[in-house]
């Protein structure tokens, strides 16, 4: 899908007056895989929602391929799709897993979007199979899926959207160990021709395929290729005492989720 460039400048995000994320400068370039790391409350989710235009910063701008998308999800959505950390279950929604993916594709087409035609159905079937949702679950309501299955459905949705950038907020956290390897491979594959930005508490799983690491703790502390970013003083600022030195050239980060 070609080259893609995201530039964030002088951004300050605040909730109710309290500043939670400061970014002096952040440049991300695709295709490739970007991992965003940081402890709970560091601002990883905030960063992704900022890039999607879903959070409006107090100041500063986010430019994607020369287009200013700051606080404007409609424009940002031309470039990207977004997988939330805890996907909404739609307690009152009549949509099944299959419908949800199909509608998300239809919404990106022109009006009227009355029903899922056979071409779209094949696209949806393909996306759901690729993320490993068994067909016996396709016609269940979202509320009837497990956390891991729900996450897979939302990943399928983000792939089916066909945009050059995918933002995924802890896509692997709710997934079982066997599923993690499969999904990790899918994420790596997707990052071959797209810019895929994932947040994670388990950086090792994708580390050797990671083009850029972004370390956050209320501000973007450092970003760049893993070999450059992984230095003891940088990690210490982000993770503090959770860093355990293991031998002279090895650090272990204790950042287990939940």
């Amino acid at each position: 899908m070609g080259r893609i460039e995201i530039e964030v400048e002088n951004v300050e995000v605040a909730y109710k007056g309290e500043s939670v994320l400061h970014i002096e400068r952040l440049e991300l370039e695709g295709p490739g895989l970007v991992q965003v790391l940081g402890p709970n409350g560091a601002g990883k989710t905030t960063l992704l929602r900022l890039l999607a235009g879903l959070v409006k910063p107090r100041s500063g701008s986010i430019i994607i391929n020369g287009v200013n998308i700051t606080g404007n999800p409609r424009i940002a959505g031309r470039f990207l799709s977004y997988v939330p950390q805890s996907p909404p279950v739609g307690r009152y929604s009549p949509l099944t897993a299959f419908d949800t993916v199909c509608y998300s594709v239809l919404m990106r087409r022109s009006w009227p979007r009355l029903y899922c035609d056979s071409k779209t159905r094949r696209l949806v079937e393909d996306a759901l199979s690729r993320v490993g949702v068994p067909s016996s679950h396709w016609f269940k309501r979202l509320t009837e899926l497990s956390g891991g299955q729900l996450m897979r459905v939302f990943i399928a949705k983000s792939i089916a959207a066909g945009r050059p950038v995918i933002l995924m907020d802890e896509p692997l956290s709710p997934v079982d160990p066997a599923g993690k390897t499969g999904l990790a491979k899918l994420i790596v594959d997707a990052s071959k021709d797209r810019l895929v930005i994932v947040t994670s508490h388990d950086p090792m799983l994708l580390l050797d395929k990671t083009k850029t690491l972004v370390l956050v703790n209320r501000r973007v502390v450092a970003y760049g290729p893993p070999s450059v970013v992984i230095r003891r003083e940088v990690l210490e600022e982000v993770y503090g005492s959770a860093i355990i030195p293991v031998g002279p050239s090895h650090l272990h980060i204790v950042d287990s989720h939940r």
Partner: protein
Amino acid sequence: MDFVKQKIILLIILMFDLVLSLFLAEKYPARWLIVIASSSTAFAALSILVYSRRLLFASASSPHAAFLAAGLGILLGYGTGIAPLAWTVIIGLVLVYTLGFMVYRGVDPDDATSLFVSFSTSAGALTVYYVMSKIVSGADISAIIIGDPLLAGPDLVKYSALVALATVILTFLCAPEIVYMGTDPDDAKLSGIRVWLYDLILFTLIGLASVGMVTVVGFVIEHPLLLLPGAVSVLSCRCGSLWTMVASIIIGLSIGVVGLLLAVLLNLSPSGIIGLLLVIVYLAALAFHRSA
């Protein structure tokens, strides 16, 4: 139950509705049937949208707006000579838009609803009390509160039929977007659809239906009519969103015509019977959902 069986059941119910409607239209004034069928169909179509878009607060508020608007409509109609229905609809829309705008600008729906319901009921009580003592008879007022389809005049008959038709057509055209906005609001924004436009359409339809038809079923029974058909169909239908909507409309229509028949046969309040039937069907759907 599989899709095919559910669709066949729905078709059978629809045939039954049509036969019953023919009977009612032959035996009693057709306008009774038209206003009841229109209002129950329109409310049922909106119900599924309100339910999946999680705008339950709006459906709780708009009937109260209707109460105030209908009172003011009579007052202004008397003062200006312009049809009360026109005033009622205009005032009702302004009220419903105000509520929608408050929520759109970030006021918590529960806070907005408390404020809104309190205001419209108090102002409504003042207006209705005044109107009743100075201008009209008690029957007109009781129609606003508990509804009386048998009083419907030619204006209301035409209005109801038009609004029901517009509601059903727009519901089908806009349902995918509105249902998706309720399912995944963030992705709806990212997908590029004009979220505000669909909300505006939905609020307009809720306003037109609940305010304009308030004298048919009364503002009290508008609550279950806006809430339950959607809930019943989402609970009991496993047949994709399009058919869930069809189911909601057929359920609403059936309850409307059966309710009207029972009401005229037993000489009871039509809206009361319709409300009770809705509750029975809802309980049945809950039981079915539990056991399934």
